[in-house]
C-alpha cells in the first residue's frame, strides 16, 4: 500500500480533484483545485502550503560528522555555520553529479541532509573509519513548506523568531504548541520557509499555520504548481535537468557541477586542501576546459513565438505546464548547440522560458540561440536569448525585511 505523509489527514479532504501522484512512495496531491494556475499564483502573490514530507531525510551525527561531509559533499560544509543550511551536491570520482540536496547544520557533529532519492547506502559506504552515524529519519519527520510573500508575516505571527531568519538559515521554533525547526528554504524561488516537525505533531502544526493564514489568500499547493515555480526559480530537478551519475549508462547522460551551473560552489577548488570526492576530476575539467555544457536560462522571443504560430493560423499557445523533455537548440548557422531540459510559459514573466544546456561559448547572457518547435507538424525555430538563472528572482526571496505591503499599490503619484 502506498504510504501517506504526516499531513495527509489534513490535506486529503482539501484535494477536490481526486488526483494524486506518487512521490518517493507517498501520496502527493497533483493539485487541490481544478485549475492549478491559481496555486501557482497563490505562491507568487500570497502564500502556498506545500507538503514536502516525502523528501528523504538523513540525520548525520558523530564526532567526525563535519569532516565526513566535507569529504563527500562537493560544496564546503565547513563554510556553513551552525543554524545555517546549504544547497549542495555530491559527485563521484569522475567529477559527475550523483545528486543534490540541502544540508542543515545544527553543530559540527549534527547535520540533517535531504535528498530526492534514497542515498543511505551511498553515504554509509563512504564512512570508512570515521566516527559518523547516518540514520534515515525520513518517516520520523514531516515537512511543510509555506512559500510566498505572506509566509514571513504568518510564521512570525506564530513565533517571532522566524521573522529574523536569514535566507538559508534555520532555527527552533514553537508552532501549534509543538517544537519544530523552521528553515528559510524552499523550492519556489520566493520568500518562503519549511517547517520540520515530528510526525506526531503534524496536525497541530498544520492547524496553527492554517489558522494564522486565514483571510490572506493562502491555499494548499500541489506538485503541478510546484514544478512550475521551480523552473522560474531556476532550481534543477533530478531525472529532468540532470541524471544521477550512479545510474547513468553513458557519460552523455552524466553532468558535472560546472556544466550544471554550480561553478560558484567551487571557486576555491584549484587551491583547496579539502579532499572531496570528485575534486581532482573537477580540477582537470577546469584546467583543460573540457566542460561540454553550461546550464543557462532561456527567454523566448515572444514576438517571434507569436509570429510563427500565427503565420500557421494557430493561436500561439501559452501554457504554464512544463515541458520536461528535450527541445533542441541551434546557433545562427543551424548547428545543434544544446537542448532545453525544462520549458514553460511563465505567467509572472509573461513569456516562455526554459532551463537549458548550451555549449560553453554560448553561455554568456544575451547570446542568441534558436529553439526547435513543431508547428502544424513541421519543425520551426524560434529565437531565444540566453539569460542568467533564476529568471524570476524577487528581492523578497533573500531580503531581510518584508517591504511594506501598501507600497506596492500606493495610490500616490509617480513624482511631484
Amino acid at each position, binding site marked *: 500500500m502506498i504510504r501517506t505523509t504526516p499531513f495527509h489527514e489534513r490535506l486529503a479532504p482539501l484535494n477536490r480533484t481526486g488526483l494524486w501522484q506518487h512521490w518517493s512512495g507517498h501520496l502527493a496531491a497533483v493539485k487541490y483545485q*481544478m*485549475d492549478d*494556475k*491559481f496555486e501557482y*499564483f497563490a505562491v*507568487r*502573490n*500570497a502564500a502556498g502550503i506545500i507538503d514536502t514530507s516525502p523528501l528523504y531525510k538523513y540525520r548525520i551525527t558523530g564526532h567526525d560528522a563535519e569532516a565526513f561531509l566535507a569529504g563527500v559533499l562537493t560544496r564546503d560544509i565547513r563554510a556553513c555555520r551552525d543554524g545555517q543550511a546549504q544547497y549542495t551536491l555530491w559527485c563521484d570520482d569522475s567529477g559527475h553529479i550523483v545528486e543534490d540536496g540541502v544540508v542543515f547544520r545544527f553543530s559540527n557533529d549534527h547535520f540533517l541532509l535531504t535528498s530526492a532519492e534514497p542515498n543511505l547506502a551511498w553515504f554509509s559506504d563512504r564512512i570508512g573509519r570515521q566516527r559518523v552515524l547516518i540514520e534515515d529519519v525520513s518517516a520520523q519527520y514531516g515537512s511543510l513548506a509555506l512559500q510566498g510573500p*505572506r509566509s514571513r508575516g504568518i510564521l512570525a505571527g506564530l513565533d517571532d523568531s522566524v521573522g529574523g531568519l536569514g535566507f538559508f538559515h534555520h532555527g527552533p521554533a514553537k508552532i501549534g504548541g509543538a517544537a519544530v525547526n523552521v528553515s528559510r528554504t524552499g523550492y519556489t524561488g520566493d520568500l518562503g520557509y519549511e517547517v520540520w516537525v515530528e510526525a506526531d505533531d503534524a496536525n497541530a502544526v498544520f492547524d496553527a499555520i492554517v489558522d494564522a493564514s*486565514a*483571510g*490572506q*489568500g493562502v491555499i494548499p499547493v500541489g506538485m503541478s504548481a510546484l514544478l512550475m515555480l521551480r523552473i522560474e526559480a531556476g532550481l534543477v530537478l533530478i531525472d529532468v535537468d540532470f541524471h544521477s551519475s550512479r545510474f547513468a549508462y553513458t557519460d552523455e547522460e552524466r553532468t558535472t557541477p560546472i556544466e550544471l551551473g554550480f561553478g560558484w560552489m567551487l571557486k576555491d577548488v584549484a587551491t583547496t586542501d579539502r579532499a572531496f570526492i570528485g575534486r581532482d576530476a573537477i580540477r582537470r575539467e577546469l584546467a583543460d576546459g573540457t566542460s561540454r555544457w553550461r546550464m543557462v536560462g532561456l527567454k523566448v522571443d*515572444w*514576438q517571434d513565438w*507569436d509570429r510563427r504560430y*500565427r503565420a500557421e493560423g494557430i*493561436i*500561439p*499557445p*501559452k501554457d*504554464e505546464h512544463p515541458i520536461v523533455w528535450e527541445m533542441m537548440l541551434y546557433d545562427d548557422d543551424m548547428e545543434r548547440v544544446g537542448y532545453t531540459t525544462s520549458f514553460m*510559459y511563465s*505567467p*509572472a*514573466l*509573461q*513569456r516562455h522560458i526554459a532551463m537549458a544546456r548550451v555549449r560553453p561559448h554560448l553561455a554568456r547572457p544575451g547570446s542568441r540561440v534558436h529553439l526547435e518547435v513543431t508547428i502544424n507538424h513541421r519543425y520551426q525555430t524560434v529565437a531565444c536569448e540566453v539569460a542568467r538563472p533564476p529568471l524570476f528572482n524577487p528581492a523578497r526571496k533573500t531580503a531581510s525585511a518584508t517591504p511594506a*505591503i*501598501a507600497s*506596492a*499599490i*500606493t*495610490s*500616490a*503619484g*509617480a*513624482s*511631484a
Partner: protein
Amino acid sequence: MTASRTYDAIVIGGGHNGLVNGAYLAKSGLRTLILERRHLVGGAAITEELMPGFHFTTFSYAVSLLRPDIIHELDLVKHGYFPLLMPHSFAPADDGGHITLSKDRNLTIQEISRHSRRDADAYDQYGHDMAQIVQALKPLFDSVPPNLFSGQAEDALALADLAKHLKGLPQRVLHNIVRLLTGSAADFLDDYFEGELLKGLLSSSGIIGTKVGPRSQGSGVVLLFHNMGEQDGVFGNWGFHKGGNGGLTQVLARAAQAYGAEIKLEAAVSQVLTTNGRTTGVVLADGTELHAPVVVSALDPRRTFLELVEPRELPEDLVENIQRYKFQGTSSKVNFALDGLPEFPGLDGTQFRGFTNIAPSMDYLERAFDEAKYGWYSSKPYLDCCIQSTIDPDMAPAGKHVMSCFTHYTPYKLKGGDWDTERDNLGDTVQRRLEELFPGFSKLVLRREVVTPLDIERTVGLSEGNIFAGELMSPQLYFFRPAPGWNQYRTPIHGYYQCGSGTHPGGCVTGGPGRLASQQIVSDLARSGPAAGAAAGG
C-alpha cells in the same frame, strides 16, 4: 521651475494612454514631459486607499485588453507588471438559480449542462468562433489604421493590404465579423445558446459602458470589443492586475520614468499653443508656458479639438464631426468596503471569487435599459461586481474585503433630476439589489463610494462620463475614430497629436492608442518633422 525648459514632446494627460505614449516617446530618445492635472497618474485607471487598508479601484477594475506588445516593448514585468487570474464568472438569479463559469473547462461544461445540455458544446463553439474572429482582427487592432480619405499612396497601399487580409479570411469568420460589427449581441448569442442565465451573462459584455441593450443593433461590436483582449494567450479572458488598475498605471509610470520621461502632477493644461498652424507648446492653468514642437493630447476628442485649441482654427467638418461624436456616458461605479464575504444562499463565498454578474437574463438587461432610454437610471441595474480582495489579498485587511460594482444603466443626463441629488439614491439602489441576492449584504458594508457619470467627468475629465472617451460604435471606430480622416493620431495642427481612448483602437485599458500614436509621431519625426494630418476630405 521648468518654464524655460524646452522638451521634444509634451503629453497632456497622465492616464494610461498618456503614460504609454510618453514612455514610448522617451524610449525613442525624445525629451518627454507628461502633464497630469490630478495629484496622481492613471486617469480612469487608479487605485485609492479610501479607508486604511482598503484599496478601491475607483473607476476601471479589470484588465484584458492591454496590448501584449506593450508589456514587452516597455519591459513592464521589470517594473512590476503582474496580472492575476480571475477564478470565476458567477451569475446569480433571483429564484436562487446560478451559473458559474470557471477557468477549468470541464467544470464549466458541467455547470452549463445543468441548465442546458446543448449549451455545453455550443459554449466551446462560441469560444472557438470568437477566438478566430479575434485572431483575424488583432493585426488591425494593433496597427495604425489607413486613412480612407487622404488620397495618399501609403494609405492606398495600406487599404490594399487590408482588403487582402480580409479576403484571406475564411468566409465564416468574415461573416461573423460583419454580424458583430453591425448587429446585436442578442442575435449573435441566440444562434448558440438557449439558457437565459448564460445568455444574460454573455450578453452583458455587449452593453458595458454603452447606451445600448443586448437587443440593440450595435451591442454586437461592444461584445466583440470586450473579447478582443487576452490573458496569457487566452482570448477574451479578463484578469486583475496586482493592486488593481492603479497598480498597473503605477507600473506604466515607472516604465515611462525609467525611459527618461518626466511626469509633472497637478499640472493642468489650459491651452495648446499654436502659431501659423503649428504647435509650439502648452499653457498650464497657472499660466506657465512649456514649449515643445510635439504636443500630444491624451484627453478625449471633445477636449482635444474643442477645448485645448481654438475650434475656429480647425476644418469645419472636423469640428462638426467631433460635436456629433457620441459620449452619453451611461455607467457608474459603486465600491464597497466589506466586513466579510457576502453569501449567496446555498453557496459559500469561495464559489464566486472573481466576477459576479448581475444580469440573470437578456430580458433583465433590456428592462434595465428601458429606464435609461427614457432618462432615468435602472431601478434594477446591471452590475458587474468583483470582490477583488479574494484575488489579491493586499487589497484589504485580512478577513475584510473590497468589492467593486460597475453599474449600468445610469445616463449622464437625467430627465428631471441631477446626479448630485441622486448620488446616494443610486448607491441605495445598488445596495438594495445586492441585498436581494445576498441576504445580509448591507450589514457587511463598512463604507460605500458612489461614482456617477458626473463624477467620472469631473474627476477624470472624460466628457459626459463616457468610460471609453466616446462610444465604441461602428461609426466611431477604425476609419472613423474619432472622426473620418483623422484616425491616424494627427490633427490639422502641425505637431499636435492625439493618443487618448478616443483614437483607434478605442477605450478600455489597452494602451493601444498611446502606443500607435507614438509610432506615428516617431515616424513623422524621422521623415520630415512634426506633421499635420493629410488633407482630409468629406
